[in-house]
């Protein structure tokens, strides 16, 4: 475990715009939708940042045997708490860091296969979300549930901040969204409603 943060898994396949990570984890530790994660870039002192936008629990033949069998409580607990379930986590790239400078843009190179993916610490999340330029990268990607992903990521970013700063942070984020989605008021309305439901 590097720097005390939780490794999510290892990169299975990657492109500049995103990557998929394979991991075997216990169920309570399944990575959350909208979490900020990071992987090392190929060049020295570069880090690639991403948002988890899909978590797929792979089929498990052993579990299938119990689906219709009404298993005893001990088996249910064993399957849930002890067994490592194979999981694929899809990550959307939203930026990268070179030395101390953070860019909200697609990185020049993708991470390497077998690289370890880490969950970002609250400090890293705060540093990355000082600006909102990554919204554009998320909103422009048709293959991801962009609105839900943005709302979830803003919730993570708000919680990473001290309680008294959360409201201002979310209001700022809402303003940026209003600017970006000025031509699509219906979508903007839906997104802002999601933001209002964020726990402050």
């Amino acid at each position, binding site marked *: 475990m590097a720097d005390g943060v939780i490794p999510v898994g290892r990169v299975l396949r990657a492109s500049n715009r995103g990557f998929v990570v394979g991991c075997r984890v216990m169920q309570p530790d399944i990575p959350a939708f909208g979490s900020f994660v990071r992987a090392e870039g190929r060049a020295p002192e570069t880090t690639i940042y991403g948002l988890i936008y899909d978590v797929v629990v792979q089929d498990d033949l*052993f579990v299938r*045997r*119990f689906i219709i069998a009404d298993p*005893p409580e*001990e*088996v249910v607990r*064993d399957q849930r*708490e*002890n*067994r490592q379930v194979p999981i694929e986590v899809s990550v959307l790239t939203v930026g990268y860091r070179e030395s101390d400078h953070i860019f909200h843009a697609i990185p020049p190179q993708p991470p390497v296969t077998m690289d370890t993916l880490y969950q970002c610490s609250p400090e890293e999340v705060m540093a990355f979300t000082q600006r909102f330029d990554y919204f554009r990268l998320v909103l422009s990607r048709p293959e991801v549930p962009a609105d839900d992903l943005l709302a979830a990521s803003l919730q993570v970013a708000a919680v990473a901040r001290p309680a008294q700063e959360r409201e201002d942070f979310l209001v700022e984020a809402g303003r940026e969204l209003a600017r970006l989605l000025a031509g699509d008021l219906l979508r903007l309305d839906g997104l802002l409603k999601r933001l209002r439901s964020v726990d402050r």
Partner: protein
Amino acid sequence: MTLELNRLTRAVQEMGQTLAHQQKDFNQWVERARAWLAEFADRGPTLREAAPEVGAAIPTDEPLDAVIPLPPLPERFTVIGADGTQIGPDRHGAALYYLINVGSLVYRHGSGQTPEARSLPDLRYREEDLYEGKLLVQGNLLDVRRDRAEIEHLADRVEAESPGQTPLPNPTLALVDGTLLLWVLENLSAEVKERNVRGYLRQLDRIRRKGAAVAAFTSRPRYTEVGRLLHLARFGEDRTRAEAEPNPLERVPDQAIFSFLPPGARSALFTSPRAINRTYYQAGGQEIRFFYINVAREGEEPVIARVEVPAWVAGDPGETPLLALAHGGVVAQSRIAGGFPYVLARADELAYISGPERERLEEMVETALLAAGLRPALSPKAYYKSLTRQGRRW
């Protein structure tokens, strides 16, 4: 693709037809064997002496055709399963070593608690670990090391259930996959045999001292020892005549004969005729007995397994007799997932070493050698395999 499946089409068709034809003969012999089982049911005592001479199951005091129904079990009891896998020494690899990984599950029936899962790897690379005399620990010798690691782990888990001298909180059954008899050692020197079997028996003794039962479970067994006993019985325990006549039951596994057992019931107890059983196990007071058992649920097709137990489990007269615990515990466990004890399925999963994990371990070894100033190198053969088997390694 190097296996040209299209060239096998006809052979596979012929195989299907031949096997269907053989099945008819097979069923007839199964019926006859069952008739003999009933006919010679009470001849056990007279067959005992000759049986081991012809590799036949040795009868106990129970009639040969006994059917013992599923015994009642206490509300709470514990079953602990252990299983192991190994990576053998590879002379083509970067260094000579072997690894044994033992997995185990402690399952407390009736508790509603999460079972305890464990996985314990053990890496051996020193000269004294890699050789027994002049023999490199591989093949059968490594299998025996794995068996010993499994039983030692089981004894540890049983003792952990109640530390010190305190009695076990619940009746406890320790379960291994396969056999309790280290018969693979039979072709090795007496010294190697003795050292390994004694080590194994010491672990069985630890389990015995805690008051737990121990058993080995074989799924779809291919033994024909009871068939040999019936053949011997047909010739009035005349060993010479029985040996002179071909035994038609030699290709009929005992499990087919016992598929008449009702769900949950077990067969009579027999004693294993293996030479190693008499020489070492019997002398150590741990002679191995076995029975067949139908672990299927009510109303389902029979699933016959073989269960081995030491004599002290088979003859235990306690309050929850250990034999009844082994019998009922195996059935309760096998009915969870269907046909195989749940603890053993999970122990196997916990012990399993995947292809990528093997590669990763080899990489770790190479890195450690480099860090220590050594220059590891694969053999030319291993190197070329790594090139040609890309994409079809597992």
